[in-house]
């Protein structure tokens, strides 16, 4: 066989295989990515698609030539001859320098365009403040009377600017919503922002993408995308709830909210609050445990102490230094009392 024709033949095979791979990528990509739930996500998925198609072709070309050579030019037993003394080919070398330059430049330019479009803020966008701390997310709607919530709810079709904060004494987290294809680190001491425009109704995962300590994998939350009218109704309901005077006794509703917003639910299992964390001790039988570990203290004293000074008594099987020691200052005394009552009563 003449080498030139072999070269052309393998090249052809490579292109066919690459094309099949590219078409396969086109067909399967939607299965590999979570459903795109935002404007930005769709733009990114177009980039993904072209990257996959191009990669498939390049991969097919390389592997076809590699496989063909390994098979066709393999040495027969006892063959001690040398190969053809080919030292290079200027034309080929120019081609495989220039073609990749064109490809990567095209992607870099396309990426820049997509990035600029995704991050340009439109007039009238919504703002949500996101706070990440070990190991919980909380959300504030600054233009809705600083409404503070434990989950993220957004109206469909409205661009949102998330302003990300972490307490200066905390560690880096990363606010990420895979369905919206957005994410940005939450940096102690340095506010950051990220922009997204949800366009698909539904409930989506919010995760922490940056290793933030032992509760990293539990630092999850949800995003609910509603119709604008539903969102407006939800806002009214939430504001009412927030504006309602807290029950004088430190009611269970309030305490339940504290349990969530302070991040307790990230680590502790407490069925009435619907949490099932395993980082810290299970709180379902707290009254009994308080007697067991309290060493003569009243149950209320023990629980209060465990919240404000978690290192004092560490339950067997759990490590010291994991629960933040800052709740004594970040929560009001009334909140702590309410929380303590709520926990001891098993949520009642």
């Amino acid at each position, binding site marked *: 066989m003449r080498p030139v024709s072999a070269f052309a033949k393998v090249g052809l095979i490579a292109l066919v295989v690459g094309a099949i791979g590219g078409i396969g990528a086109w067909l399967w990509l939607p299965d590999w990515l979570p459903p795109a739930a935002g404007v930005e996500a769709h733009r990114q998925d177009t980039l993904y698609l072209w990257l996959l198609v191009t990669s498939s072709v390049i991969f097919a070309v390389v592997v076809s030539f590699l496989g063909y050579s*390994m098979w066709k030019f*393999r040495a027969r037993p006892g063959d001690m001859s040398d190969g053809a003394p080919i030292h290079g*080919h200027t034309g080929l070398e120019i081609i495989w320098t220039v073609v*990749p330059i064109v490809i990567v430049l095209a992607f870099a330019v396309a990426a820049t365009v997509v990035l600029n479009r995704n991050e340009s803020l439109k007039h009238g966008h919504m703002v949500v403040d996101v706070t990440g701390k070990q190991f919980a997310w909380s959300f504030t709607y600054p233009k809705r009377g600083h409404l503070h919530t434990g989950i993220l709810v957004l109206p469909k079709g409205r661009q949102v600017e998330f302003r990300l904060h972490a307490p200066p004494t905390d560690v880096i987290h990363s606010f990420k919503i895979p369905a919206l294809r957005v994410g940005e680190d939450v940096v102690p001491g340095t506010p950051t922002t990220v922009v997204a425009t949800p366009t698909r109704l539904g409930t989506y995962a919010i995760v922490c993408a940056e290793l933030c300590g*032992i509760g990293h994998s539990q630092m999850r939350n949800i995003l609910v995308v509603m119709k604008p009218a539903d969102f407006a109704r939800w806002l009214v309901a939430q504001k009412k709830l927030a504006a309602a005077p807290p029950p004088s006794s430190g009611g269970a509703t309030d305490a339940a909210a504290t349990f969530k917003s302070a991040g307790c639910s990230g680590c502790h299992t407490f069925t009435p609050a619907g949490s099932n964390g395993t980082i810290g001790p299970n709180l379902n039988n707290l009254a009994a445990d308080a007697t067991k570990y309290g060493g003569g203290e009243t149950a209320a004293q023990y629980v209060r102490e465990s919240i404000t000074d978690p290192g004092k008594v560490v339950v067997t099987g759990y490590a010291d230094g994991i629960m933040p020691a800052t709740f004594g200052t970040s929560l009001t005394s009334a909140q702590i009392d309410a929380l303590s009552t709520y926990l001891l009563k098993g949520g009642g």
Partner: protein
Amino acid sequence: MVAHAPELHAHDLHDDHGGGRKRSVWLRGSWVRAAWLSAALGLGAAGLVMLIRHLSGRVAYSDGVVQTFLLLFAGIGFTVGIGCFDYWWGYIIGRPTPAHEDHSSHGARVWKDYFKVNTDHKVIGVQYLVTTFIFFIIGGMLAEGVRAELATPGLQYFSPATYNALFSVHAALMIFLFVIPAFAGLGNFVIPIMIGAQDMAFPRLNALSYWMLPVAGMCMVSSFLVGPFDAGWTNYATLSVHGPPGQTFWVMGVQFAGFSSIATAVNFLVTIVTMRAPGMGFWRMPLLVWANLATSTLVVLGTPFIAGSQFMVLFDRIMGTHFFDPTHGGNVVVYQHIFWFYSHPAVSIMMLPGFGIISEVLAIHSRKPIFGYKLIAISTVAIGVLGFTVWAHHMFTSGMAPWLRVPMMFTTMAIAVPTGIKIFSWVATLWRGVIHLTTPMLFACGFLFTFVIGGLSGIFLAVIPVDINLTDTYFVVAHIHYVLFGGSVFTIYAGIYHWFPKMTGRMYDEGLGKLHFWLTFVFFNATFMPMHWLGMEGMMRRIADYPSKWADLNFIISICAFVLGASTLVFIYNMAHSWWKGAPAPANPWRALTLEWQVTSPPPIFNFDEPPQVVGSPYAYGVPGARHAIVTVHVPPQPEEIPVPVALAQATPTQREAIMSALKHILVVANQTVAGEPLIAAVRARAAADPIRVTVICPQNDPSDSWVVDESAVEAATRARLDATLAALRGAGIEASGHIVDRDPFTAVLDVVESDPPAEIIISTLPHTRSGWMRRDLVERLRDRTSLPVEHVVVDEPSESSRA
């Protein structure tokens, strides 16, 4: 593995310094002194710190401070105790120069020498490789722990803190104690010989670099004793600043490993720039040397940055500085800039030497010049230079200055171009070669497959909008393993198999090598390919627990990861067993042109008797008459040896019997080609390895391709060729006898095998197309029937009048 030096020097060289009086094991450089000095200095320093703290009214014991001093001084104590500084110390205090200047700790003669400070680059290379593989195994077991935990959702075996430590220590060991130093080890062994030097430029510094390595490894592994570091190998502040005491162990480990790395790099730079053999211009350097030159430059420029970043973390922890503390004006993101300014080039540091190995292996095992030598060399340098301009692509979502992202994307994309050039050039090197699919070649080809995937997934991650989604997911885990396992580890394997005969003087087991390759290749891809999908679906990296929708894929990945881990055992067994009992390796089993293959296996103590003269390209395979270098070997005066035929002629019948039975019997079967040069060369090559005796048989088939056959004329011609052959062999001191047999070659061979069993059979024929024997599969049939090694020699110049 032993006897790098002529035996007559051995006992001279073992004298200790000075007057030949051997000092006590407690006082001379030894493991005993290393143990007590390490303990004494470490505990002493820690005690002193505690005393000072106590006297100044503080709590005497504080994790960070005390452990820092303990580790620093224990580490230094170890290197001093083992003897790294003995020469310099003697020099400083003016001790008389040892009688055998330089050579007292050079070269290994017995296996114990590998456990001592040694200045021979070949010994250090082996020390590096064995040490790094120990840490490779430890790091691999930590990874299996990670996969065990992830096999099913929920927490089963480890607490979240331990889980975080598993992947942190895994990555730290693999990067700092395996990939980087394994390349340093291979380079140490190979580079000086490749460039025609006697050793590295600074042999004592070289030894010190090596002995820092176990110290660094012990720091990292022993962090499990105090609460292991668990902020990932990236060790981002502020998580690392708030982390457990093991953080100190990590920081000190990085310092020792970093020092080792920098010192070795300086050594390589000076060696390569100043010690090349006459005639080896830059454009005649093998590509591994180019790669090492570029890598060493990166190490020298980059490593101080990671050392600095980790010191800053340590100071924030123990000295109350606030580099990364926003409550006191520190900046958290700054850490990442400093860290990645080293750690991106570190990717090149972990990849470029592998590229060099691949260039060597592909050219040699496909018997072809490397395609586009200059462009490959230039692209190596380009990757190194560009490597310093892309660090922030690890930080697209870090909250750094947003404008910095787009420029960094363009430079990152630019790196794809020289990388692509290399891959295309390597594939083109295979085209029209004569490809010997040996184990190193399989690993090199496997590398091309996996590295293309790693490179392409890298382009995904360079595209900012796509990276924003994929960063910190399992896609990144897949990508780094395709680059660092499919890239670096595959090339390390290729390099070790390729140079194993040179290092140990023995051949590895090819069958086990191929088994190892296929297990590694298949299960590597089965482990890491599905991680791309997990990442795209949104599974974050570094999580101990995950939603159960990913349970099936994770379970499959874990099973494959366990098999991948087990495949390493095949490698370890092959290496250990072959080193111990493998077949002796010839000087140049791959028929390579580069200099390291022109010396014995293992090489002599100072590599070359005279500086070699480099006269051409290192890759001129297939070019008639091409040479890379002229190597002069001084043949030591040998005791007068009586050639075997002479001895036999003088011997009594009983002596004769004894002599004959001590000789290895080789049976040569040839007819028309019996006087061919390649055949006689093949016999001579055997005679050079072992004392042999040869039986030559010339089966006379019916030469049916002529119309008229004059049998007596044919026999006479054959007789003449046979006699000429026997005379040539006897002239070379080989005992040879031979006869013409009047039958089919197959039965003729079986007769000899029965009456006087040979150890080996050599069959010589014309090329396949013109050989009647080959048309009848003579070689295969004999192999099947006799189970003896059968070599087939092709003689392409029919000796005179073969068709008479």
